[in-house]
């Protein structure tokens, strides 16, 4: 794993001469005053180099502390591991030596780990020296080998960890190349001398290793330490500031920023930007049509949608429109989640409908009980609630899209629950203003099963089904065509964009309604887009043949069919001899640049525009359908019969007082007669 240099002999100290050539200025600038008067000249160079080393270390450590905290967090652990290993190998105790070191080393500004390691390595070697003087070299060698192996091992471990900058390995190469540097000169003053067996080959190799290591690029950008140091020194040399040591840190940071920022730009590309629609463009077209909110409001909506896209796993998103309310209005966004990302919302049970039906059942029950005179057994009510039509699956039919609402751009988006068929059916019967609060109850007759959020969702479903239109040819059916006959009334329910759509001229779009088609499914009277027989029990699929036939009879009678997908608008039903759509050119003065605008007369507030290859639908209004007649609320249900008259229960009139008295008198007479007879009998 590690590349062990062939010669275990450590290159001694006068590498400093070489190093001087490499980094001259810093060394000079980092001269610290150290209490070493007795140390010889060469040894003096060690502290300088050590200082250099430590300066290097410090710089990188400062980088670490600022940028790569991961590395910094690892270093203590690594260090400890190293020390543990060393302790195991050496089994050494350095009682006296350690005390000397900290005082020595304190003026330095590097962190403590390096200090400790240096002290340990030094102690190791010192001890071995103390133990055996004769085998100095050998012991030195062995001592060197071990820490070097450790160091190298550490180095390789560092490499394995893939460019994790750690404190220890920062100065690793130098130490490995010249382990003498890690020792403080005071204790080992004589050692460098002995170690001065220079052999150029390992040194050069070590230098190459060092350079290669420095040229490693960092994790976050393409810059390597080597390049950065080169830049920094070039900058310093060019500018020649007065106190470069003092300015070193800031210079380092500014240099880093200069060269660092272009590389970091590529990381921040937003991938989520594709899901947010181009609201401003649509707002422009809508403004041409004379519809829509002002441009700054549109921009705020755009920002709000962007926020929504960032929060939720959204695949496509569209601004559906605005529904006005009494106290607040709703901004509605139509959204499709990514595949498989949809979370199952808590099942919101139908509170209103279910409870009301149960209440009806209880009332009829009590009615029955009240009328019974003789029997003690309580009768069960024969009324059963009508079968519940199951709601459509997500991404199907009326629940094809998910809707989020918020009151104002900037407020949090709230997700609306899926719509159930019963809610749509009831929503058709009532007409209520929205208050603006999603949890407000909808008090109406017939009672709406749900609160305002459900009512809002039902209206959104109805409006979408009725007024979402697109130019003919924009959407086409998929490639599967064989199922058309089999499905019968269900029809196709999916479409895709037509890549060959070339756009219809605006004048033609305005002229004829046949050039527009609905691209949302029509909602059947049942409340769903695909008909489902509520009497069928899906669990019990094995019905007897007789039952099946009976059910089929009901099926055929009850199956509801609606217009299939992509029907043109010309086939829409008229309202009182009035076309349900009005089409205009946005500007009659410049027809060649106009936009075709279609307005719904059935749902006032629903607009669609089309121009060349673009189109869009929007709804801004109160959320109610237009009806030329007055709204007639449904009448209450007829009074239920209290009980069925049959042989068991027959209503009789109560006996009158005279009849009761007559009956009582007749009974008394009978008793008197019987008593007389008995007396007579006894007499005999």
């Amino acid at each position, binding site marked *: 794993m590690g590349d062990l240099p062939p010669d275990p002999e450590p290159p001694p100290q006068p590498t400093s001469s070489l190093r001087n050539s490499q980094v001259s200025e810093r060394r000079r600038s980092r001269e610290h005053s150290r209490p070493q008067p007795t140390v010889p000249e060469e040894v003096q160079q060690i502290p300088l180099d050590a200082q250099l080393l430590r300066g290097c270390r410090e710089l990188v450590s400062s980088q670490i502390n600022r940028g790569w905290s991961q590395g910094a967090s690892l270093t203590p652990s690594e260090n400890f591991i190293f020390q543990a290993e060393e302790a195991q190998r050496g089994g050494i105790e350095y009682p006296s030596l350690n005390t000397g070191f900290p005082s020595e080393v304190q003026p330095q500004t590097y962190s403590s780990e390096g200090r400790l390691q240096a002290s340990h390595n030094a102690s190791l070697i010192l001890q071995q020296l103390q133990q055996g003087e004769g085998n100095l070299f050998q012991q030195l060698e062995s001592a060197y080998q071990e820490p070097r192996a450790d160091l190298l091992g550490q180095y390789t471990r560092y490499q394995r960890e893939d460019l994790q900058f750690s404190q220890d390995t920062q100065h690793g190469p130098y130490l490995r190349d010249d382990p003498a540097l890690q020792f403080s000169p005071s204790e080992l003053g004589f050692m460098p001398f002995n170690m001065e067996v220079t052999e150029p080959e390992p040194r050069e190799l070590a230098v190459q290793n060092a350079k290669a290591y420095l040229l490693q690029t960092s994790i976050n950008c393409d810059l390597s330490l080597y390049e950065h140091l080169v830049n920094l020194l070039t900058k310093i040399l060019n500018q020649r500031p007065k106190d470069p040591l003092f300015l070193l840190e800031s210079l380092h940071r500014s240099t880093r920023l200069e060269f660092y920022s272009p590389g970091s730009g590529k990381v921040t590309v937003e991938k989520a930007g594709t899901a947010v629609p181009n609201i401003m463009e649509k707002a422009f077209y809508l403004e041409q*049509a004379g*519809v*829509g909110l002002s441009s700054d409001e549109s921009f705020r909506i755009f920002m709000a949608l962007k926020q929504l896209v960032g929060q939720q796993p959204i695949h496509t998103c569209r601004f559906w429109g605005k529904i006005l309310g*009494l106290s607040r209005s709703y901004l509605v966004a139509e959204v499709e989640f990514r595949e498989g990302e949809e979370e199952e919302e808590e099942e919101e049970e139908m509170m209103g409908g279910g409870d009301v039906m149960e209440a009806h059942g209880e009332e009829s029950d009590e009615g029955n009980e009240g009328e019974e005179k003789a029997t003690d057994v309580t009768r069960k009510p024969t009324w059963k609630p009508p079968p519940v039509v199951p709601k459509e699956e997500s991404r199907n039919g009326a629940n094809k899209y998910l809707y989020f609402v918020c009151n104002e751009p900037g407020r949090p988006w709230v997700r609306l629950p899926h719509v159930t068929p019963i809610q749509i059916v009831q929503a058709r019967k009532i007409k209520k203003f929205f208050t603006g609060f999603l949890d407000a109850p909808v008090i109406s007759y017939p009672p709406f099963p749900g609160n305002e959020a459900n009512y809002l969702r039902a209206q959104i479903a109805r409006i979408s089904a009725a007024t979402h239109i697109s130019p003919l040819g924009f959407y086409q059916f998929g490639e599967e065509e064989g199922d058309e006959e089999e499905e019968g009334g269900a029809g196709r329910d999916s479409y895709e964009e037509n890549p060959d759509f070339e756009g219809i001229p605006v004048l033609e779009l305005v002229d004829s309604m046949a050039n527009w088609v609905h691209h949302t499914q029509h909602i059947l009277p049942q409340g769903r887009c695909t008909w489902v027989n509520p009497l069928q029990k899906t669990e019990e699929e094995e019905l007897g043949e007789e039952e099946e036939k009976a059910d089929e009879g009901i099926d055929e009678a009850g199956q509801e069919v609606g217009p299939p997908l992509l029907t043109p608008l010309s086939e829409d039903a008229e309202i009182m001899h009035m076309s349900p759509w009005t089409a205009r050119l946005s500007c009659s003065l410049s027809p060649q640049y106009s936009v075709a605008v279609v307005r719904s*007369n059935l749902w006032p507030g629903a607009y669609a525009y089309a121009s060349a290859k673009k189109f869009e639908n929007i709804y801004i209004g109160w959320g109610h359908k237009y009806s030329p007649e007055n709204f007639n609320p449904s009448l209450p249900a007829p009074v239920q019969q209290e009980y069925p008259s049959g042989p068991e229960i027959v209503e009789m009139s109560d006996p009158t007082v005279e009849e009761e008295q007559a009956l009582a008198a007749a009974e008394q007479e009978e008793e008197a007669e019987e008593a007389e007879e008995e007396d007579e009998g006894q007499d005999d």
Partner: protein
Amino acid sequence: MDEESLLLSLELASGSGQGLSPDRRASLLTSLMLVKRDYRFDRVLFWGRILGLVADYYIAQGLSEDQLAPRKTLYSLNCMEWSLLPPATEEMEMQTSVVKGRFMGDPSHAYEHTELQRVNEGEKVFEEEVVVQVKEEIRLVSIIDQIDKAVAVIPRGALFKTPFGPIRVNRTFEGLSSSEAKKLSSYFHFREPVELKNKTLLEKADLDPSLDFMDSLEHDIPKGSWSIQMERGNTLVVLRSLLWPGLTFYHAPRTKNYGYIYVGTGEKNIDLPFML
């Protein structure tokens, strides 16, 4: 909305979703200025737009010095040529009460309505079916008048009454305060007062005769027929009428900007009591 601040007003009223396209705006700016000059109006208001099936009507009103004097109403189909409409009468209102449905967009269109009328021929009295034709122009006039009488709004303090009688625009009106702006009582109907005389003396004592000379919206029937909202983060108060859906009144508190515009189908919302 005042023609002088048309662009700003349109932007402030855009919360209801209906506005004007840029070409219409450009036409309005110039044509209303010409109308003001030609008819010698003191102020011209862009009243709104009635959506018809075939075409839309753009309505403007011209005011003289006295703000509450009867206004002259003009209509246009293209925002460039304006035609004066006749003033509204009671008879017109009766005629149009039988007409229902959307506006066609053609001023000469005649709505036909069959009525049973008693015709006296000599001594015989019999009923005949008579087809009554109501022209759309008449209907337009009547509807505009009804809307004005029912839901035209002005904030308190925008007009003041001079001691001699005429109502003038209050040049020192700096806008309602934020707290006042949220109350319905700070807004008046922009018409001759109807209910003011029914107030008790005690209530009248608190009123300022120069400012409170019109009916406030507070006592409108049915209660709740106004939707009052703050938009744009509390910098704009918007009143929307639920009785005539499409009428939007906006006011930016503490500024002089206020106005109303009607963009709708021109039909009264009779279902209002069911919807509240």
